[in-house]
């Protein structure tokens, strides 16, 4: 036995006035470290501020290009029975950007199928007589429902035949000495009210809840998986567990950092969307028609709803990260979890704001509907209260679950 001749050294004195706030120390370290990870920087900062607006701009270019093409492209269309209706045939042939070819009925389907013609108008043999006698002529327009060009050509034929029909009506009215207004009892003009929403706000209300949910979740994936599964994998978790920080403090510090990343990710997504919709750039004209109208109340409600949503996502992701042995295993659990988040977020795009109260209990979907209501200016107080209570409850459950899991040594120390 070795005799103890000298007193053993004591550890350095801790701060006498301020006991260490382990939650804050861990949060601060995790938060600063997270943003040194290139993957997180891309998913949290670059993606919502640059990639999302770029995707919308690209979509705008494609959509306006398609619209331009639909207006100016020359389509080859066929007419069956043109000889029995020379006036109609002449009118069609005079139409710009339309190449009209008379064909027999037997070839109509084949020529559309072989892409030689985009669409075919089938006029009955008695067209001329029917028009002269004031009867209605049944015209079939043949099109390929699976071909965009064919549908556009058919639409153009429909419009032109409608215009020819208007001329026929005008002639008939003149023959009976009746004014043109006789056949137009209503003169309708749609006028959006000044206090109402705009197309941009409508699109934003439809897409923002989805984009916010997905960005809050996806932005925090790398951060959450790095926090526990990554630490287990690299062997740093053990060093943290032998520090004086309690496991509860460790999980709360890490949890706070993931919540912060969720919030930053979704806030930057809002910024990205507002830049997109409010920039006035012509690439976003398809979205920003009528300008963007966001009330302060709508912004406040959106931000308030984001908090429990972020806590819920952070709790779920941290629980997965704690349960998994390494980041690769965590990734395998991610797919079903992503579907659970993605599905309600997608459903919210197609639901109106006047949903039943039971929807307020559906996680993620309830938050998405509140955001949608706020942006549309239609607040349902009962729904908001119930949904908020449910969201807070789910968030608390997720946090409790993650904390409990972190206490289990069989999960934390897998040797």
């Amino acid at each position, binding site marked *: 036995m070795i005799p103890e001749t000298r007193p053993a050294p004591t550890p350095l004195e801790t701060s006498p006035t301020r006991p260490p706030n382990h939650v804050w120390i861990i949060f601060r370290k995790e938060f600063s470290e997270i943003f040194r990870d290139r993957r997180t920087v891309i998913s949290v900062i670059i993606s919502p501020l640059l990639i999302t607006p770029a995707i919308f701009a690209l979509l705008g270019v494609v959509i306006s290009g398609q619209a331009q093409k639909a207006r100016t492209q020359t389509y080859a269309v066929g007419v069956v029975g043109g000889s029995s209706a020379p006036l109609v045939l002449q009118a069609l042939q005079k139409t710009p950007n339309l190449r009209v070819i008379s064909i027999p009925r037997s070839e109509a389907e084949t020529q559309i199928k072989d892409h030689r013609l985009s669409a075919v108008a089938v006029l009955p043999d008695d067209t001329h007589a029917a028009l002269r006698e004031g009867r209605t002529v049944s015209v079939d327009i043949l099109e390929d429902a699976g071909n965009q060009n064919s549908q556009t050509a058919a639409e153009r034929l429909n419009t032109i035949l409608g215009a020819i029909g208007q001329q026929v009506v005008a002639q008939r009215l003149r023959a009976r000495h009746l004014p043109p207004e006789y056949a137009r009892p209503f003169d309708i003009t749609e006028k959006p009210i000044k206090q109402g929403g705009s197309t941009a706000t409508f699109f934003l209300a439809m897409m923002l809840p989805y984009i916010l949910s997905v960005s809050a979740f996806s932005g925090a994936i790398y951060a959450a998986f790095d926090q526990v599964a990554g630490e287990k994998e690299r062997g740093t978790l*053990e060093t943290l567990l032998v520090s004086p920080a309690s496991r509860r403090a460790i999980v709360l510090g890490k949890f706070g950092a993931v919540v912060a990343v969720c919030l930053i990710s979704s806030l930057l997504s809002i910024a990205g969307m507002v830049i997109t919709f409010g920039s006035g750039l012509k690439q976003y004209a398809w979205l920003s028609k009528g300008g963007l109208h966001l009330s302060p109340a709508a912004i406040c409600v959106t931000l308030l709803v984001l908090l429990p949503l972020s806590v819920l996502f952070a709790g779920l992701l941290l629980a997965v990260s704690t349960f998994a042995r390494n980041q690769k295993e965590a990734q395998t659990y991610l797919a079903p979890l992503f579907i659970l988040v993605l599905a309600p977020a997608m459903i919210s795009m197609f639901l109106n704001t006047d949903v039943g109260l039971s929807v307020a209990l559906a996680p993620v979907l309830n938050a998405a509907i509140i955001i949608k209501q706020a942006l549309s200016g239609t607040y349902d107080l009962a729904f908001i209260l119930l949904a908020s209570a449910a969201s807070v409850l789910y968030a608390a459950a997720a946090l409790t679950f993650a904390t409990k899991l972190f206490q289990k040594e069989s999960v934390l120390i897998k040797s």
Partner: protein
Amino acid sequence: MIEARNLCKVFTDKKRGLIRAVDGVSFECHAGEIFGLLGPNGAGKTTLLRMLATILEPTSGTATVAGYDIRTQAQEVRQNIGYLSGSTALYERLTAREMVRYFGALYGLPTEAIAAQTEQIFTELDMHEFADSRCDKLSTGQKQRVSIARTIVHRPPVLFFDEPTSGLDVVAARTITRFIRRCRDENRAVVFSTHIMSEVEALCDRIAVIYRGQIVAIGTLEELRARTGRQAFEHVFLRLIGEEDT
């Protein structure tokens, strides 16, 4: 400084049923002593050290470390220990200085004390050259020095080393063994777990041979040699665990 009394740890494995990883282990380690835990892989060394470091909770039995009970005073135990394992790593995105500061803060050291300790340790271990480099940019030897700095930033009276030289080259391993000797010279209690015979012979004042979760012998090198009648420590060890060829 360390007194383990009948420590047991039982794990449940779905395939193998109950596994007694540590089975009734008792020993003492004093200030100024390097106490070696020698055993083959899977003998229970890591589990034993993890219990002493309060990472794992004992199934039965207990221990005191620096006068604190590992079951009821876990936080006080952790405040008084340093733990360095061959499998533990560094936060790669932190610099060496940030790493030491972080652990200094976790140990509750005042800001000025952390700064002073960092300076002193960095000088002792010749770390100033790479103090502000990210850990993922450091060489293996430099990383080892950061690990040591992290372990002693609060100057603990008790240190646990779990196979700290595993996977290291000779130069990096020498940094560790020098550090362990210095801990003894500073009158700290050191528990050193390894399966490498030469390290035990070179470093340990007393040795516990651990096999299948149980301590089969404790003593100084000479005591164990006398007990087995063997000189080469490899033969001493094999005889003690009953695996010596006859």
